[in-house]
């Protein structure tokens, strides 16, 4: 990838709401060039989405429950972990799924409205899969940092004096 494409990618990764005109000025390119780069990155599925990072714990209407589940599976001949992974990640409640090294194989992140909803998913969907040997569920109690962003008050407020030499 070219240097300016990387630069644009880093900018939108940090702030998906920057408009094309602003990005163009920042990276010293025309708007058309920036648009072309973004189109290309989207088409190649390098940019997958321009989502906001939300602290749902501050939204009264929906707190929700998130669990991280360690899953041990038997890999299948020929397809390894990919097939069982696909069967798991196609469930919409699966927020993230990673193949990991160590004591277990897959790390599944599940979002649900209640703990019992997640418990049901684990017993009825996940454990029911033939290749799943065992699961260990960890409920998230608090988010300190997510996607590189500090939750809580962080350090966002400007502590500088308004005019200085």
């Amino acid at each position, binding site marked *: 990838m070219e240097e300016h494409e990387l*630069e644009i990618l880093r900018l939108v990764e940090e702030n998906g709401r*920057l408009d094309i005109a*602003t990005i163009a000025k*920042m990276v010293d390119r025309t708007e058309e060039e920036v648009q072309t780069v973004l189109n290309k990155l989207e088409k190649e599925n390098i940019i997958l989405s321009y989502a906001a990072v939300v602290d749902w714990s501050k939204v009264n209407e929906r707190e929700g429950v998130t669990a991280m589940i360690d899953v041990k599976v038997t890999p299948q001949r020929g397809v390894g972990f990919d097939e069982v992974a696909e069967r798991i990640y196609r469930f919409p409640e699966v927020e993230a799924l990673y193949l990991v090294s160590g004591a277990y194989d897959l790390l599944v992140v599940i979002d649900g409205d209640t703990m019992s909803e997640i418990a049901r998913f684990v017993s009825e969907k996940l454990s029911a899969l033939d290749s799943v040997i065992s699961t260990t569920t960890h409920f998230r109690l608090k988010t300190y940092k997510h996607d590189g962003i500090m939750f809580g008050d962080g350090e966002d407020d400007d502590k500088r004096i308004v*005019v200085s030499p």
Partner: protein
Amino acid sequence: MTTPVRKKGRLSEAVQNIQPSGIRRFFDMASTMDNVISLGVGEPDFVTPWKVREASIDSMERGYTAYTANPGIIELREEISSYLSRQFSTPYDPENEIIVTVGASEAIDIAIRSTVNPGEEVVIIEPGFVSYAPIVSLAGGKPVSIGTKKENEFKVTKEELEAAITSNTKAIMLCFPNNPTGAVMTKEDLDPLVEIIEKNDLLVLSDEIYAELSYDQKHYSFARLPGMKERTILISGFSKAFAMTGWRLGFVCAPADITAAMLKIHQYAMMCASTPAQYGALEALRSGQDDVERMVTSYKQRRNYMVKSFAEIGLSCHVPGGAFYAFPSIEETGMDSNAFAEGLLHEERVAVVPGNVFGEGGEGHIRCSYATSMESLETAIERIGRFIKKHSS
């Protein structure tokens, strides 16, 4: 009955003769207002990298809370030495050519006080940082200004320097990348000055605190020019490159005789720089270069944004090659820089610093610091654009 306190004559003449900085007035105005977007801040908008803060906290936990050697802990001076060699090809001996100071501010003070005799002149390149001329005056010296010009991209020329020199000239104070203009001088720009400096046997006080914040080419240190290290006092610090303004930590490098002289003032006036700050700085030099690069990329993007946006709203602005200031001309509006800055603050709630506070050549310009969030910059540009439209006849 107590004796009445003597009011008349109780302040020194030297201090009475210097004026408070014009920046102060804008601070007082802006700080009473709400909803102000400030482009008036002369410091990074980043918080010091966590690893640096963590190292300093750790040093305190381990009990490093005593004075250090006057010139600073030797490990830090060694790191400064290798940092300067690595980044700017200007090696200095950590034992007797480097002092860790309380900011570049102290470095400026002790450099001037240890070299300037009463009556001697110091050439100051303006628009420039506000402290040089007052410190020269406090030392009994005479500041002589050169006002650089927009058409020269605010660089100082050989002819301008030559014209400013008299038989009393002792030193020249340089600052590139410059606050407030963002001007840089390349090796090719600096080369012609050497002949004049040698001919007149001048010292050079080079404030290179913005060296890392150079966007279009690598900074070229004045001390690196052939034969110049012997005449140069190199002033720098951690405030800008490592986002450490509040730590109050800088350094000064010079030939051993000058360093020894500066150390005399430093040891009596400061004893040593803050110990926890020195341990933080040690970590900054050992592992902070990635953070510097991350911040530099971000400043550069904002520099680009500001220069292009000023052009769009009709302000001509030379491309600042370094620091985090844009210095657009507001002459087209017919207002002087004070009226412009005051009007902008009151009508649109955008704080900038009028160019005239930075000395000769500053009038007709405003200093806009772009060390603030993109969101604020976008709003500021919108407001400045509206202000200009309203006031253009």
